[in-house]
């Protein structure tokens, strides 16, 4: 039996979205990349912030923001230090 260590990230798939995606109309490859820092490092969060900062924000809260971007969450790979969201389009 495979037993992942504590450090192994955990995957959650959003089957509702992932099942019927169609990318037939995609034509532009180059991406836009936005990186917003709210503190200099994970070890330097302001006193007002939640202990795990942005990672304390539940996935469903990001959905509204991602709707404005025209992306949907396909799956989330969660780890202690970073959560990786795979998105549509």
């Amino acid at each position, binding site marked *: 039996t495979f037993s992942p260590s504590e450090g192994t990230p955990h995957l959650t798939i959003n089957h509702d979205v*992932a099942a019927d995606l169609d990318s037939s109309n*995609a034509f532009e490859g180059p991406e*836009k990349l936005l990186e917003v820092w709210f503190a200099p490092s994970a070890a330097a969060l302001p006193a007002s912030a939640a202990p795990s900062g942005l990672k304390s924000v539940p996935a469903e809260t990001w959905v509204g923001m991602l709707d404005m971007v*025209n992306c949907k969450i396909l799956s989330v790979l969660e780890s202690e230090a970073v959560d990786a969201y795979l998105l549509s389009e």
Partner: protein
Amino acid sequence: SSMFVFPHKLILKTCGTTTLLLGLQRMLHIAAANAGFPFRNAVSVDHVRAAAIPYRVFYSRKNFLFPDKQRGPHRSWKQEVKYLDDMIEGGGSAYMVGRMNGDHWYLYITSPNKTLTPPLTPNLEAVNGHPTPESMSNGGSGANSPGAHHNDETLEILMTDLDPEIAKQFFLSNASAVATDKLAAETQEARRKAAVSRNGLSTPIEEVDVFDNQGADWLSAKKLDAIEELTTEGHALGTVVSESCGLSQVYPTSVYPDARVDAYLFSPCGFSANGVIPAPATAHEDQHNSTHYFTVHVTPEPGFSFASFETNVPGRQNGKTTAEIIEHVVGIFRPGRFSVTVFETKGRSANPYGMGDEGFKNLAMQRLVDPVRGYRRIDRIVHDFEDYDLVFRFYERE
């Protein structure tokens, strides 16, 4: 598209005609209202206009293939810059890197907001990602270095004009066939083992009756479901493609045992993958307890084929050097041309590998001239920012 959420920063990379910047206002609001970061624009954080104050912002993209088809502020770089300047107090600086009549790259960057540096008293209660005395003194933003931040290194490879034969791997029809072949091979192997178990000797595969009881078991409804899922479901096929194209070997589990890749193959084509790479326990002290990421996006259609690879896994972290990573990734896609950008904190590696500043400078200079086999370097441009170095290189196939 992909999003990476760290305690202190968020990275959003979106493909196609997405309207990434239209999400910025909401992102700043969530950071204030749901994560507790200091905010402005409102008296109460509950107000919809309350927006967290960013410590710093980066926005970048390659020039679009079809800019007229983009939406919102993304129709032109000028509009994007205006949008960002309007949104971010104090504004930022916008750059174009590379040939205007070629595959150039755009960057918008703000200076660190020094008002958001932490208090002078280090937080000593820390565990599991929270401050420790070690992390505060080891490149972390510390009390004695206002505005400083953790070592940071991002490598991005943007590839166009992919080899058409290679690009076929990223079509669902092709990947589905690969998955079916893989399943058939696994099933045959299982049958062979079953036959060996029954007969006590190695039975040639062709002599095993596929309709015997063992075969019927293997083709049970459950197995058929598994076959259906593996050959059609996006995540399952994404995993198959990650392995077959060589992507899963960029950061192999033999070196990064806790690495995990989440991949998806779109219908009828297109591919995205995120990797989360906890640092190996044997890595240098500086890398302990740090987790990095990589992300890959592929648009394989002829005429506008494109692939991107981005990572912040430090080169040489017990694994491949940056040059080896570039060669590996370029070998997967065999693009007609590609750009490489390396964005890193100034002097970030002056100490971690035990060499002096002079030794590191020599290594850094060497990396600036690294050739990539089979490609001719067309451009090499170095930008010396306030606290980051940016190296942009552009290559064409020989």
